[in-house]
């Protein structure tokens, strides 16, 4: 019985989402990018990224052999772009996930509990909200050392505060409903109310918010990589740092500067459009306000 209801809700959701044109464009872009990232190990040879095995001329413009030209060591820019996509997407996704988990826990707790617990939680949230996230992330990355997992932690730990605020507001709204009061009167404990009542209600909002978070996480990851606090692997940000260090911008090597940046913009826009479409679909009240 619940299964058919869920299937009906899913079809309803799919139909409403399909009406958001911008969301469809976003989803299409994401599909292409994710497919490319997943298929890369099957279609290309990663050894081309080894500096010692590079075969192309240095900083050469696009040609038949190298469709997007070469970098300062003669490596194919296109190859690095594809492998970099995997890193950027993975780190972006995982850090958004981490940020969502921390933010949801803080948000629900701050909205559910009363008194000094909530006050302290809100204070901490506000503190993190105000602090410059990029600077904090850079310090964390430097302290914890390079590597994908530390970057994920650095980004996740510095970006959860806005999610927490959102979830808290939603939790307060949900808990104001009469059936929650009844549930409490029947003896429901904190854990029960938070997981069985609040969580399912805030889940759609969390989903939409996480999608938007991935967008900003990817920008943060590439910025960190560009500024030298990267994961150590080739990503779009490190490529751009390479282009900067070797003066690609000032010497006109546009094939090294444009593609990674355009990829970042495309993916970020795609996630943003999807996230906003999800917001509109899952929360019809917001629909007219945009």
């Amino acid at each position, binding site marked *: 019985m619940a299964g058919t209801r869920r299937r009906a809700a899913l079809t309803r959701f799919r139909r409403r989402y399909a009406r958001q044109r911008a969301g469809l464009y976003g989803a299409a872009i994401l599909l292409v990018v994710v497919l490319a990232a997943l298929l890369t190990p099957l279609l290309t040879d990663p050894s081309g990224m080894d500096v010692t095995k590079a075969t192309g001329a240095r900083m050469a413009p696009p040609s038949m052999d190298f469709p997007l030209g070469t970098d300062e060591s003669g490596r194919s820019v296109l190859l690095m772009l594809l492998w970099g996509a995997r890193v950027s997407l993975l780190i972006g996704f995982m850090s958004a996930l981490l940020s969502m988990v921390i933010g949801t826990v803080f948000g629900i707790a701050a909205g559910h509990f009363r008194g000094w617990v909530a006050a302290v939680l809100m204070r901490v949230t506000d503190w993190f909200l*105000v602090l410059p996230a990029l600077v904090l992330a850079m310090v964390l990355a430097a302290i914890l050392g390079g590597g994908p997992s530390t970057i994920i932690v650095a980004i996740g730990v510095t970006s959860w505060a806005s999610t927490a605020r959102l979830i808290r507001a939603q939790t307060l709204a949900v808990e104001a409903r009469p059936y929650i009061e009844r549930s409490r009167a029947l003896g429901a404990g904190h854990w029960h109310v938070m997981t069985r009542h609040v969580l399912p209600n805030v889940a759609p909002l969390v989903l939409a918010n996480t999608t938007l978070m991935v967008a900003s996480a990817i920008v943060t990851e590439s910025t960190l990589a560009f500024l030298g606090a990267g994961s150590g692997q080739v990503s779009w940000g490190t490529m751009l740092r390479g282009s900067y260090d070797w003066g690609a911008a000032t010497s006109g090597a546009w094939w090294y500067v444009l593609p990674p940046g355009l990829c970042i913009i495309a993916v970020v826009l795609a996630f943003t459009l999807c996230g906003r479409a999800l917001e509109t679909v899952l929360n019809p009240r917001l629909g007219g306000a945009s």
Partner: protein
Amino acid sequence: MLTSPQQVRDDTEEGGARRAMARYALVKLGGTLLSIGLVIVATFFLFRLIPGDPTIAYTRDVPVTPEQLALLRRQMGLDRPLGAQFLDFVVRTLRLDLGTSYEYRRPVAELIGERVGPTLLLVGTGLAVAVGLGMWQGTRAAWHHGGRFDRLSTGTALTLWSVPTFWLGLLLLMVLAAGVGPIPGLFPTRGMEDVDAPGGPLYLLHVAHHLVLPCLTLVAVVYAQYLLVMRSSLLEEIGQDYVTTARAKGLRDDDVRRRHAVPNALLPTVTLVFMQIGFVVGGAVSVEFVYSWPGLGLLFVEAIRGPDYAVMQGTFMLVCVAVIVMNTLADVVYHVLDPRVRSA
């Protein structure tokens, strides 16, 4: 002249209001000091997490004997218990002694003092332009809601929001500073001034010329949020009854907007400007690095490369404290501007 009952009422009201203000100011000050204290504590423990021995890092390029290393350890206070180190740290920080840079061999406070000016120039100019531009566009977009200007400016703002600051900087460098094909570059490619900078009033123009691209980059990414906030605040105000009352009174459209809708919509926008300083700082770091603008951001990024922990620690604390102070200012400004909050 005898005081009328009216005057007595006014005086006590005024007195009460003043006392409430003083109480509010004290509470705010207390909260700010607490937050700053938290920053200092957090910085200390954060930087103690660093694996490895700081003395090794400090003497990387210099051959030293074990005795010299031991002496250095004592000098840096690393042989004392953690609690003593913490107290020492707090005291020194309050005295504005932020340690010595490994790379530059100079006091961190001195380095910061040199670099603060350019950063303030960049961030100040950038903020002023971004806030002005964003608010003006947001106002116009909201007032002509749904029209072409609205859709165009909102779309542009959202797109620019997705562009990484540093990449935009690279792009502008490529196009406007280095030049494309036959078209020459119009702006310098790095720094705040050239070696052969002119003196006197021409110096200001020279610096301004260098400021254009960094400022433009910063503005392009940051102005979007001011536009969006102003737009949504104004849209909310436009729907209120008092705007209809204003129209019914016979005011011109412009006056309704300027005298009624916009002042109300400004309140949340102004607060947001102060609260989002953290984000602007992040953008400034990228911009300073790309353009080699000699500010705190560049200093910070260079310290990552070292790694020069003393400099990192010092700039980190300074930036955090600055942001916290800005946030308090946001509350105070809101309190002063909104009469509803004032008497609460």
